[in-house]
Structure formats: structure tokens, C-alpha cells
């Protein structure tokens, strides 16, 4: 065939560069997973809230307006738990810290693990909702027939945009198939110092 040395070198160079680009794009695809998370958390888009505790910011409370904060709890298939909230909605000032109790009941006779996954609407409110203490940060374990009440402590940022006057916080309870050791390890990773 008529392929000379210079061409062969050129071809090799092209191939090496192409393969490098390929591998880069493959890595990029996987990098997009945490990047997407980071992007969502930083911008509050997609209603994904922080899964770690945030400190209370000592700021003035905006007494001029109230914001309605609604709570909705949902169960899911495969977990025989009941999740309920003490109050369906509350009126809170921006800048104010508030607390509301959530109750988890295991209706079956055997112990199981669950995780409450939060979602906020409108998504533009997410960065302004600081969770100080939330059961959603960790998996929860309930013995058979056990009932547990855990508070959610949150603070609405003072700079919550004027247009937002209703925030809805939904928790969906999902089963977790884990051994106790795995749960403890996961909770440890999530910052629970036990």
C-alpha cells in the first residue's frame, strides 16, 4: 500500500489523541454525576437540599412578612412504616428558626431501615432553606412496632426572595436494605458522630 512513514506517524498521533479524548469524555460522563449534585446544591436548582446540617445564621428576622411552609409526607412500596408530621403547615418569618416534629412508626413486627428523601418546591427556595437538624440526613432504624419522633429544625434565610410566599417540603420514605453495621457506617459518613 502507499502509506509512507510521515503518514504513519501522523495517523498514530491522531489515534493517540482520539483515544485520549475518548477516555476524557468517558471520565467526564462519570464526573457529571457529582458535578450535577454540586451544581444543584450551589444553585438550589432541582429542589435538592443539602444532606448535611447547616448552622443557624444569626440574622435579623424579617417581621414584615410571613412565609407558609407546608410539609407533606409520603411512604413508598416495601416499607411498612407510617410517617406523619405534627402540623401540615406553619407560618414563618424569613430569618426565623422553626421546629416541627415528624413521627415514624414501624407497623410490622420486624426491624427495618428507612430513609426520608426530601424535595423542595419551588426549587428557587432551596438555597434559602437551611436545615439545622433533620432526620433526612441519615437512615433511620426502627424495631418492630417501634414509634419514633424526630424534630426537623430549619431556618428560612432572611433574603428569601419577595415572590416566594409558599414553600412546600415533601419527604418520601424509602426502604433501605442494610445490615446494622452498614447503617452505622453510612451514618458515620454522613457526619453522625456515633
Amino acid at each position, binding site marked *: *500500500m*502507499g*502509506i509512507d512513514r510521515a*503518514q504513519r506517524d*501522523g*495517523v498514530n498521533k*491522531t*489515534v493517540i489523541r*482520539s*483515544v485520549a*479524548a*475518548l*477516555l476524557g*469524555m*468517558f471520565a*467526564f*460522563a*462519570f464526573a*457529571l*454525576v457529582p458535578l*450535577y449534585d454540586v451544581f444543584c446544591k450551589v*444553585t438550589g*436548582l*432541582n429542589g*435538592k437540599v443539602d*444532606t448535611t446540617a447547616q448552622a443557624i445564621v444569626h440574622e435579623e428576622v424579617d417581621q414584615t412578612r410571613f412565609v407558609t411552609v407546608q410539609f407533606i409526607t409520603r411512604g*413508598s412500596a416495601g416499607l411498612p412504616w407510617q410517617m406523619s408530621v405534627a402540623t401540615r403547615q406553619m407560618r414563618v418569618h424569613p430569618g426565623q428558626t422553626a421546629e416541627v416534629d415528624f413521627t415514624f412508626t414501624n407497623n410490622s413486627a420486624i426491624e427495618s431501615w428507612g*430513609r426520608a*428523601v426530601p424535595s423542595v418546591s419551588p*426549587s*428557587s427556595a432551596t438555597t434559602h432553606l437551611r436545615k439545622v437538624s433533620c432526620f433526612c440526613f441519615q437512615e433511620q432504624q426502627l424495631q418492630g412496632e417501634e414509634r419514633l419522633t424526630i424534630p426537623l429544625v430549619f431556618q428560612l434565610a432572611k433574603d428569601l426572595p419577595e415572590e416566594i410566599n409558599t414553600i412546600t417540603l415533601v419527604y*418520601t420514605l*424509602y*426502604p*433501605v436494605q442494610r445490615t446494622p453495621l452498614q447503617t452505622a457506617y453510612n451514618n458515620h459518613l454522613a457526619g453522625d458522630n456515633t
Partner: protein
Amino acid sequence: MAPKLPPHNPLQHSSTAVAGGQSHEGHAHHTPPKGLLRWLLTTNHKEIGSLYLIFSLTMFFVGGIFALVVRAELFQPGLQLVEPEFFNQMTTMHGLIMVFAAVMPAFTGLANWMIPLQIGAPDMALPRLNNFSFWLLPVAFALLLSTLLMPGGGPNFGWTFYAPLSTTYAPASTTFFILALHIAGISSILGAINIIATILNMRAPGMRMMDMPLFVWTWLITAFLLIAVMPVLAGVITMMLMDINFGTSFFDAAGGGDPVLFQHLFWFFGHPEVYIMILPAFGIVSAIIPTFARKPLFGYASMVYATAAIALLSFLVWAHHMFIVGLPLTAELFFMYSTMLIAVPTGVKVFNWVTTLFRGSISFEPPMLFALAFVVLFTIGGFSGLMLAIAPADFQYHDTYFVVAHFHYVLVPGAIFAIMAGVYYWLPKWTGHYPNERLAQCHFWCSIIGVNLTFFPMHFAGLAGMPRRIPDYALQFADFNLLSSIGAFFFGASQLLFVLVIVLCVRGGQKAPAKAWEGAVDLEWSVPSPAPLHTFETPPVFHRAQTHE
């Protein structure tokens, strides 16, 4: 054996054997094996090109039959022929086969045949890799098609396979679906590397980048798109595999994941993918129209820039497939603007083709018929695409038959017609005979009627409120569906004419000279028809007179 001609003469010195015959040059290689083994082991770009094209045509009929099952069920309201479970498999497999096994391999086949000929290269840069790239495809699609026979059935979640329908709620065969897609993806990637290496390094001396035919340019840009996004598809399906089999939660809210992440990743691949399926078509049409208008392509440089612009912009529009998912307003607006913007370079290309025709000297051979139909019907598909770009309006169009109409217009009378145009155009070069003109014209007119009867009513069905991917529908959609189903069967049957034309042409027909078409200018027309198995073993000197600038 023909004598060696002086090196500056672009006519070939090698044997005049037909492409597919044995060559007897004085090089030291052994005679190639005969029969099946010869096709299994060939590293010749012409033979591999033919393999891709035959494979693609076969899969076109397979995918077409799946579509006919769908259209047969949708002929009338009610569930008469298949269960919804199987219907979902048919719609899914129709999409997967057409995208990955028909359209993409067809363009790859044309690339294999024509790129070396158009740049004056003796073969592709990596001939053995070329062989491997092809043979991956029958393996991949045998595996994919076999999932239909597995317990639980084949993939039934749409060709876009959104999670969690395709992960948590998917049939057991999904892991094999993922494997098949990985294999096909590797094939595309290797093909793309080969094409880039060939185009960048093996052009005839004197041929600058801006001298290359537009088919070569569009394939170069397509190959870059493939390298950029096929790995992202590989990443997504690997994540799916992990979610299904290894307990991860990329796309599962229960484990902290997000189903919408799947869509972002999929469409980041998916949108450039649809440009991968159309850019080579632009290249083919840009060769055919100047030939049969006997006039140089209008605005060669802007065609190149427009193609590059489309390719770049294609990375910035993906979420227009997700307008109703609950994206934040800022994102929604950004993607609306970028999607509207991509209409501009696409429009420029259409204007350039029309201006090429203006004050030309136009004849209507079969390749030209298909190329002209492409310009009109692809543009109509482009119009519905522009309507879809208007995000608020998209809330009413999304996931309806309006979208189905749009993408079938750009893919069937778009990409597929361009492929057929290319086949009719280059058949004389491949076989040494002109395709039978009467039969080809019959194929053309039947296809035009069929394609419009099938897909035009879908615009109205969608506007009237018919969702996608449903096996049965409310009564107000009945008339539109009746027409579409009739059109589909008519169109499907017409494609048998295409096969007939090709088979007859391979076997015989009016003899074609090297320059089979009066207005044809590119390098492939300087070699004999049919092209010998080995061409441009000595690189031709590229004549500037053929320049496009």
C-alpha cells in the same frame, strides 16, 4: 496487467478488476481468501463499505417490520393484534434498530467507500481496525434482537430508555440490551477514529482542508461528535448497569440519586447523536445538487462553517428534550434560546442549496430527485423543530405525535432519502452500471407518497392531543392513524423496489463511464467505473481547478 502510467495522471495504474475481484499487482501479498472467509477478513475499504451498506439495508427492513407491527395495531382504535407489553417492545426496538443499526451504519458504509476515493487515499488509515469495527455490528444486533426472545421480553421502555422505567422496573434482558449498545458504541467510536485519522493524514498532496468535498468535511465533523458523545452514552448505560445489578443509585431517589440526571446525561449524548445522523446527509446532498445543477456549490466556506457551528451548538441544546421535566426557569430559557439559534446555520445550508439551483442547468436523475426531496421535506421537519423550540408551546407538543412527525420528517425524508440519493449517485462507481432509471423513478414517487401519507397526518394527531407510545387511542385520532398506517405499509412495500434496483444494478445495466454524471467533479470520478479493488495506490496530484474557493 495494465502498464504503469506517469505519476501525475490521476487515473489508476492497478488492475482493472471490478471491486470485489482478485487483484494481481506486483506486490508481495498473498491472494486473498475466497468465499465467506474473504468477507470475514477483508481490510479493503470498498468491501467493508459494501458490508456496512448491506448490513444497514437488512436492518432497515428489520426495523421497518417492527414499525409495521406498530402501525398495524394503530390502524384502528382498540387492541386487536398485539398486547401492550409487546407493542412497547416493538416501538422500542424500532427506534433502536433504525438509529443504531440502519442510519448510522449506512453513513459509515458510505464513508468507507467514498472518503478514500474523494481524498485520493488508497484505503482507510487503519484497515484492520476497520474490519473489526464492522464485524462488531452483527454481533451487537444479534444480541439486541435476541432479547425479544428472552423471558420477560426485550427492551420496552422506548429507545430513549429513561430511568427508573429502564432500571428498577425493567425486564431481565436489559443487561443484554446494555451490552449490545456497548458493542455498537465501540464500533462507532473505532470507526470515527479511523475516519479522522484518514482525513487528517492521508489526503492527496495539494488537497488543503478547504479543498475537500463537503461529504468529507461533514464526516470529519461527525466523527469528532462521535468521539465526544459515544463515551457519554457508554457512561450512562454503565451507570444503568450498576443501578440494575450492583445496587448503586445513580438514578434512584431512594438512594439519593435522581431520575432527571439520567435524562441530562442521555440527552447530552442524544442531541449530538441526531446531528451525527444528519450531517453526513448534508454532505451527500451538497455533492449531488451541484452535480445535477451543473453549477458549483454556493458558499462552500459558509457550508463548512455552518456545519461546524451546528456541531458546536449541538452540545448546548440537550435539555430542549426536557422542557417539561421541571427545569428551573433560567435553564429553560437558556435551552430555548440556544435551540432557536441552531436554526440559523441550518437555514443557511438550505439557502445555499437553493441558491446553487438558481440559474443552474438542472436535470432530474434519480439521485437528484431524492436530493431535491430531501431539501423540501427536511426543511419541513426543520420547521416543526423550530416550533418545538418555543418552550411554552412545547408544553403542548412534548411527547405527542407532533414530535414523532418532526423527527420522522428529518430522519426519513431527511437522512434516509439522502442515503438513498447517495446510493443512486455512487452505484455507477461501485458497480459500473447505471441504476435502472424507470424503476428508480417509481421507487422515488412511491416513497414520496408513502412518506408524506405516513408522517404528515401525525402533526395533526399530535396537535389534537394524541400522546406518543400508546397502543390504543381515543376516537378523535382515528382518521389520522388510519392514513398513517396505510402510508406506512405503502412506504414499506416501496422499499422493495430499492432492493430490486440495487440487485439489478450489481448484476448488469447500462454501462457507466468513469465520470458517470456530466456535472460530477470530485476525485472519485477520475477512477474507472466500477472502481478497481485498489485505487490511488500512487497518490494523485490534486488539481487546483477542482477547488471550491
